[in-house]
């Protein structure tokens, strides 16, 4: 049955006008939305201040949510542990036995590696973390893949800095607020990371597919040399991402590359570390005097770096 319409304006001129003007306001809203949308599509960074402010406000709630999420995740693992402990225990014992042998071999190799690097006078490029923080929220309902980080300008985080978890690269910072920062996750379609195969250094580009996997595109054309299970690390070419950061493992092959599974699944890596940008010019093996002038040419990315370089002087 149709309800009695309380919303008919009747003969009241005042009600008629207010009804009419609310429609006008609605249409004006559509136009305003269209205008703002066109503005933000032409310049992505245009409303960064608004987004930063909104995420700064929500940091305390986000911290709480992240803590709860971590606790619940561990609770799940604990319960699961009770069911599988027997077989898992046996399997782990076997693995530990094998790993002990490997450890000795690895120690030898690490030592050899160190000596060889010293011989070549390569510096051990180990980034000092800028900050460690929680991933507090994500854009779970949008087709874009962003996450919010619980550290911002106050903690030294700057635009362009890579964000890593113990398992590998998570993404990079794209917008910075006072208390929070916005991270473009590796799996977003806009994220492109130069990578190389860990075993032999075949170069490729890893582009996000927005569903937890990456599209690997090989730079050299020819017969696809990839295999399922190949692991890829950041190559560091072009700067930004530290070379050797684990990225992904090939899950299936395509005609010109592969689909790879991201190693640092952000769903499992709430605690992350923000690294300074990898800047090949700042490498100790190259002339350090050149650093500020060259990084100045990439001013969009490395403003934080040049500021730090000044500080060192």
């Amino acid at each position: 049955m149709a309800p009695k319409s309380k919303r008919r304006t009747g003969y009241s001129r005042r009600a008629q006008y207010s009804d009419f003007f609310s429609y006008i306001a609605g249409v004006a809203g559509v136009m305003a939305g269209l205008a703002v949308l066109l503005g933000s599509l032409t310049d992505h960074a245009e409303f960064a201040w608004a987004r930063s402010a909104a995420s700064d406000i929500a940091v305390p709630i986000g911290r709480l949510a992240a803590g709860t999420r971590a606790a619940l995740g561990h609770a799940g693992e604990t319960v699961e542990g009770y069911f599988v402990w027997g077989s898992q225990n046996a399997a782990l014992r076997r693995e530990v036995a094998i790993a002990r042998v490997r450890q000795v071999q690895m120690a030898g190799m690490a030592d050899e590696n160190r000596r060889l690097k010293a011989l070549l006078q390569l510096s051990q490029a180990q980034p000092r973390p800028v900050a460690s923080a929680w991933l507090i929220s994500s854009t779970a309902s949008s087709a874009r893949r962003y996450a919010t980080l619980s550290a911002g300008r106050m903690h030294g985080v700057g635009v362009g800095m890579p964000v890593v978890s113990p398992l590998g690269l998570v993404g990079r910072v794209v917008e910075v607020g006072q208390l929070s920062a916005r991270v473009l996750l590796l799996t977003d379609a806009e994220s492109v990371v130069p990578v190389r195969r860990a075993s032999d250094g075949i170069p490729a580009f890893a582009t996000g597919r927005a569903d937890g996997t990456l599209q690997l595109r090989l730079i050299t054309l020819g017969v696809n040399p990839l295999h399922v299970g190949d692991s890829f690390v950041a190559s560091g070419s072009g700067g930004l991402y530290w070379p050797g950061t684990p990225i992904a493992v090939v899950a299936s092959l395509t005609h010109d590359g592969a689909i790879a599974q991201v190693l640092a699944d952000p769903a499992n890596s709430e605690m992350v570390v923000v690294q300074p940008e990898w800047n090949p010019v700042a490498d100790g093996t190259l002339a350090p005097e050149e650093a500020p002038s060259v990084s100045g040419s990439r001013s969009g990315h490395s403003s934080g770096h040049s500021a730090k370089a000044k500080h060192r002087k």
Partner: protein
Amino acid sequence: MKQFGIGRVAGKRSQQISRAPSPLVAYLTPWATIVLASYLGGLPTIATTPWMPPLGFLALLAWRQLHPGLLPIWAGVPLGCIDDMVSGQPMGSAILTWSITMIALELIEFRWPWRNFLIEWAVAAGMIVAYILAAALIAHLAGGRFSLLLITPQLLLAVVVYPVVARCVARADTFRLTRFWAWG
């Protein structure tokens, strides 16, 4: 059976004299719950795939269907603006789509004034599907990846979850009209 939570408080309070709904609460509750829903959508997980129903939009639909006329037609502008700040969509996406939604619902109500659970759910489902598709297309324009396969789980989940959101909004509405202590 005893009621729980806010509804119980409202029931108890309503039996006492010298109590009246607070105008502030009555006006602000719909706006506040929609903003809250926009924020809550991102919290439960760091998602690698878009699966979360657009909670802010669902709350807007639910309030609009529960109380036509409570939110003005232009409500999509401020609410969509806040949703855009947290949703990851390019700014203006929700301002545009939520404003269109408010006008569309007004027209639908004008043509088909009948109301029951199934009709409202069907109308809401249509709006949800259109909204998610539009949002995905806008995200694609901004550099995201558009794939029907990618958003299908989200579409289904959002349509199924809508009645639950509508129940939560109905519960918030009980709170909205809670009779607080009135002076004089």
